[in-house]
């Protein structure tokens, strides 16, 4: 993740802050002067991962460009819960147009800033997984292809949560949604390729692609800062658990994001110009059922009529990720799964 030598400071760099670390080694979030880009009073559910991820990412972006930011937002939870007319939670310049056109609007803002000679103003576009992998994908691919100077951040909660938990192309196999009901021999969402957007973004050979979760703040902030150092099209994909859509306890949001990474189901890595440069190692590997069983959207895999066969297929996805990105250093870290 980072190339700094490992020091031991009680909680190292796992916690948000640490009184034993120098200020410049602490996170943006530990600082009382953080931008709080999205303010209190927003109407996100209790324990919303997306509200958290958006503040983490934008506060880090704000710090790295001295607060000179314009954010463009697609339609989605993040737009709806933050800005019910006439209130807004945003403390940064913020634009919303349509569900599918956020990348194109961001391209336009970047072009306008260039024309005005304000290249110090950086443009961030953000959307949920629906606005990214489905509805906005055409515009996003075009933005990548033109290498427009925009950082696009996808907050992936694996479905259309705001409209009542419908399936998106980022919904994982076997998950129950309103449109992938628990019926038939293969209940929940189908097993298939879905859309692995970080890899699709890498296929565009853009300068920077990275994934992160709300469970590892140092890593997330590092990736935002790295992205802000670069110009051109950059893509950051942040896993943000959704208590409503996943059927999880509101206090488990960060815990679930951590388990998603520690199982291997959500590989955390970064890539430059289409090549993976760094993959965050799994620290304490756990089998996928530890992650799945905390979520009601997978409840049909457990309980009175368990489906170990389906769990095993999900485990094989995790195993494939571990192999593909090299998420485990040592073979002796293997656990029985």
């Amino acid at each position: 993740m980072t190339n700094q030598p490992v020091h031991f400071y009680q909680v190292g760099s796992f916690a948000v802050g640490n009184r034993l670390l120098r200020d410049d080694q602490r996170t943006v979030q530990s600082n009382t002067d953080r931008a709080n880009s999205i303010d209190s009073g927003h109407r996100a559910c209790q324990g919303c991962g997306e509200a958290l991820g958006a503040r983490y990412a934008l506060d880090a972006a704000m710090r790295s460009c001295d607060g000179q930011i314009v954010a463009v937002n697609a339609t989605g939870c993040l737009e709806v819960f933050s800005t019910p007319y006439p209130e807004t939670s945003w403390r940064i310049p913020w634009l919303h147009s349509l569900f599918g056109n956020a990348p194109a609007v961001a391209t336009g803002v970047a072009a306008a800033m260039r024309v005005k000679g304000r290249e110090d103003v950086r443009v961030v576009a953000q959307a949920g997984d629906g606005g990214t992998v489905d509805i906005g994908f055409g515009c996003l691919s075009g933005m990548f292809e033109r290498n427009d100077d925009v950082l696009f951040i996808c907050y992936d909660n694996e479905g259309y949560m705001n409209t009542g938990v419908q399936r998106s192309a980022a919904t994982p196999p076997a998950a129950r949604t309103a449109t992938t009901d628990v019926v038939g021999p293969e209940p929940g969402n189908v097993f298939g390729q879905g859309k692995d957007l970080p890899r699709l973004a890498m296929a565009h050979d853009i300068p920077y692609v990275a994934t992160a979760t709300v469970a590892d703040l140092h890593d997330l902030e590092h990736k935002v800062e790295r992205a802000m150092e670069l110009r051109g099209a950059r893509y950051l994909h942040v896993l943000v658990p959704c208590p409503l859509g996943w059927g999880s306890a509101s206090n488990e949001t960060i815990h679930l994001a951590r388990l998603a990474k520690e199982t291997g189901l959500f590989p955390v890595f970064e890539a430059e110009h289409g090549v993976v440069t760094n993959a965050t190692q799994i620290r304490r590997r756990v089998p996928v059922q530890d992650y799945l069983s905390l979520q009601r959207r997978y409840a049909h895999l457990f309980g009175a009529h368990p489906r170990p066969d389906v769990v095993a297929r999900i485990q094989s996805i995790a195993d494939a990720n571990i192999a593909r990105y090299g998420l485990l250093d040592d073979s002796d870290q293997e656990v029985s799964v």
Partner: protein
Amino acid sequence: MEIPFAITLDVGSSRSNHTGSWRVERPVYVDRLPPCNDACPAGENIQGWLYYAESGNYRRAWEKLVEENPMPAIMGRICFHPCETACNRVQVDEAVGINAVERFLGDLAIEKRWSLPIPGSDTGKRVLVVGAGPAGLSAAYHLRRLGHQVKLVDSASQLGGMMRYGIPAYRLPRSVLDAEIARIVAQGVEVELNHVVHDVERERIDGKFDAVFLAVGAQLGKRVNIPAGDSSRVIDAVTFLHQVAEDDPPLLGRRVVVYGGGDTAFDAARTARRLGATDAVIVYRRNREHMGASGDELEQALGEGVTVRWLSTVNRFEGEKMVLEKMALNAEGFPEPTGEFEELDADALVLALGQDTDLSLLNRAPGINITNGVVSVESSMMAAPSGIFAGGDAVPADRTATVAVGHGKRAAHGIDDFVMGNDRSPKVRHGLATFDRLNTWYYADAPRQRRPELERIRRQSTFDEVIGGLNEDNALFEARRCLSCGNCFECDNCFGVCPDNAVRKLGTGERYEFDYDFCKGCGICVTECPCGAIEMVPEKI
């Protein structure tokens, strides 16, 4: 404000939407009792002093430590550290080396000549402390802090009690003992040595003392009736160790048998080995699982060539032959004789079968209740309404120096209440910070630091200290392994993980507070608090 076309309302902030009204449970910051503090017989605030040690502020850490215990360099060597047994980090990797850090701080304080806190302003009350062991010294220190005049008397020629006359120098170097005792005496304690108290009530009245603290210890080695041809070859361990401490060791011969399974038995055997015994054999009637001595002491003794005969008793000692009887444990774990005998060549027998306390000085004190050879006391350590308090080995409790230090402190507070007419309300103890309340993900992986041990050959012939100390690097590292169970250490997690920005950070040392106008009660801060210092409580509806 000019409102644009088709806009009818001004832009407002979401801060007018008080999402705190959604909440059915609220997070609250709590302090819970760390298991180390809970287990410490001396009542140290271990988590509290480690907190300062973690930032390298050793002076502040030491000051916090000596608020409860004025002898950290001694305790850092001889304490059996129940804190480490209780430490939650055991369930992550290994316990924090609290004892080692305590010794590091104690040694540093001696080296830097740090002084104890200034005694309290004079109350005009006079207290007699009988016995200058760990309980008496601890009581003298705490009484001085409370502003009382203290006269400390002891029958021996030097201060320290069993710390000097019971614990061998290879475990507790005399320079360390002397330094920490001198520091307590320098608090303004009047000392009288070689003074045997025969009648405590008489001395209390004659000396016009307002209260007396009895810490006479347990100096009488228990004897059992073992047929022995030559009784001069049988000695009790207390006498043996006392004579060694006075540099007048008895001649025991080359083959020494020690009878007993407690720490004293091991001290005697290891001492005999250092005095030249080729065979130092411990005979114990039960097995390893039931022995009273600590596992560390057993390992060190075995490393020095001491051998142990488990499940054996001494039947008789004739000439140079000792006859042992083999024992077997019954279903309840008690040893029973088997009728099988074996012989052992031996020159001397050291009895380490426990100690009794000499309480004849209480014969004329009214209101004293002596049961099973020890003085009954209240929770304030009061033994008689005339102002006699007691502690240490003379009262019913585990007989360790650390327990005695705790008794000394408790008695000092009890005496303070008694002579000043206060009524110290009992301290409210926080609920225990159990392991299940922690989120150990956040703690960095950190292996325990080891203290160096003296090489074995020197341990078989000299009284040099066996266990070395940590240096600053590994002491700091070890301190930072503390999980700070149940007590906020300002990691900023709650401040960072709140999706609603409903946690206010108040600055270094001031911790945080919740903004209940906006807190939705999701509980992420509780789950992600590493040390379990936040709890959810139901809202009143």
